[in-house]
């Protein structure tokens, strides 16, 4: 004799049919969580480049005199430093304005590229040892702000999505 499950048990075993919006909210939360850790990846990439710079890129092949001649005279340390100062200032202002505007755009990896460019220019000019910490401090500041911006933005959006998800599941419970 088979025992038929009670209607209450049946209801427990069958998962509730998900509302169309819920899957979208879950996907958004997953996407935002992945996005919030992008800052850490950019920071890790920058630290890796900085370690290479501290070693004066000794793991890279040396530039031949012919290539060096073809590249021409490197810019002076003062010129590179002025460019670094302008870059750091404008990047900080742009990130702060994005924070104020609640923009979701993120350019951490692009900044890693620009900062690596400064390391390369200082290295070619032969003044990397004197200016390495300036580039490092600029990078940590810019990437720190970028990471903080994207982290707070994603957390805020995740909170909104969670609220929306809770609201939809509450509606679903009421309907049933």
């Amino acid at each position, binding site marked *: 004799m088979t025992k038929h499950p009670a209607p209450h048990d049946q209801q427990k075993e069958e998962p509730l049919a998900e509302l169309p919006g819920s899957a979208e909210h879950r996907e958004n939360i997953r996407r935002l969580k992945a996005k919030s850790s992008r800052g850490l990846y950019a920071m890790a990439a920058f630290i890796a480049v900085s370690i290479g710079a501290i070693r004066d890129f000794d793991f890279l092949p040396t530039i031949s005199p012919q290539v060096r001649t073809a590249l021409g005279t490197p810019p002076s*340390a003062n010129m590179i430093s002025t460019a670094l*100062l302008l870059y750091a200032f404008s990047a900080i202002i742009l990130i702060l304005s994005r924070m104020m505007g609640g923009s979701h755009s993120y350019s951490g990896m692009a900044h890693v590229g620009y900062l690596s460019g400064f390391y390369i220019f200082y290295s070619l000019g032969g003044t990397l040892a004197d*200016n390495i910490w*300036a580039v490092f401090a600029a990078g940590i*500041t810019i990437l720190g702000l970028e990471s*903080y911006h994207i982290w707070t933005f994603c957390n805020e959006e995740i909170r909104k999505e969670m609220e929306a998800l809770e609201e939809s599941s509450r509606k679903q419970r009421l309907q049933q």
Partner: protein
Amino acid sequence: MLKSLTFRAIVPVAIAITGFVVVCCILLYSALKADMINDAVSYETKLADTIIRSTHYAMLKGDRETLRNIIENISSQDELEHVRIFNKKGLIMFSGKHGEVLTYVDKKASGCIGCHAGPVAKSTLKQMERARRFQDPRGKEIIAITSPLYNDPACYTASCHFHGADQKILGILDIGISAEHLDSTLTLLQSRMIIFSIMILLLSIGGVAALLRRQVFVPLRQIRTFTSKVNSGSLSHDLSGISGELTDLACDVRSIACQLKVAEEELRKIKGSRKTDHEPVAEAGSAP
């Protein structure tokens, strides 16, 4: 803590200001260091030029005693670590330190290798290329410069000399000054910049925190206390002393509270009047 308004307001400002000040300080320090080293090298170059001009006549005349005397007098200055003249082969002919006279300089040592790296030694170098920085055997930092003694017609036409016209360089004057003074100045500058950066950090955090507390957090706390009292039914609590943009919010909260108070009073009046209306009917109904 991470989600609090204070943290979210202070962190970006502190990172941005302190980070930028640190970058500026490092770049300024680097530029000042380069300028000070350039100045030291320039001073040494001028000193070398003065020595060469002072000794030129004694060299022409082959007056070794006068030459030795000049070198000894110059090298007795406190800042100067060494003054020496060596010939093309690297044999030291005159020096402030008597012990190193007639000894050979190491061509592979820093400062010499700049010219002697290749098979043929370079005969001309720029001012900064002639300078070198090294530690002497006592561990003292030295900034040294080498200045070549070029051959000129007065040298190779003089009767007492044996230099040929084809010999471009007759000898090298080598001067070294102690870098201790420069290093101590740079260390002082570095510590001042660190203190300056810490002061900027503290001022930015303190300033933002003080302004936020005065302009935002205290009024917000007042509004919060007021709304919680309204929520618990106490409408007699007064809301005052709020300024700035929060005034509008405070006014709205106060007007909602007043409307609520009026509505409650009206409701109480209506309830009271209904009660008085129903009481005689009940009394009439209960009569026999």
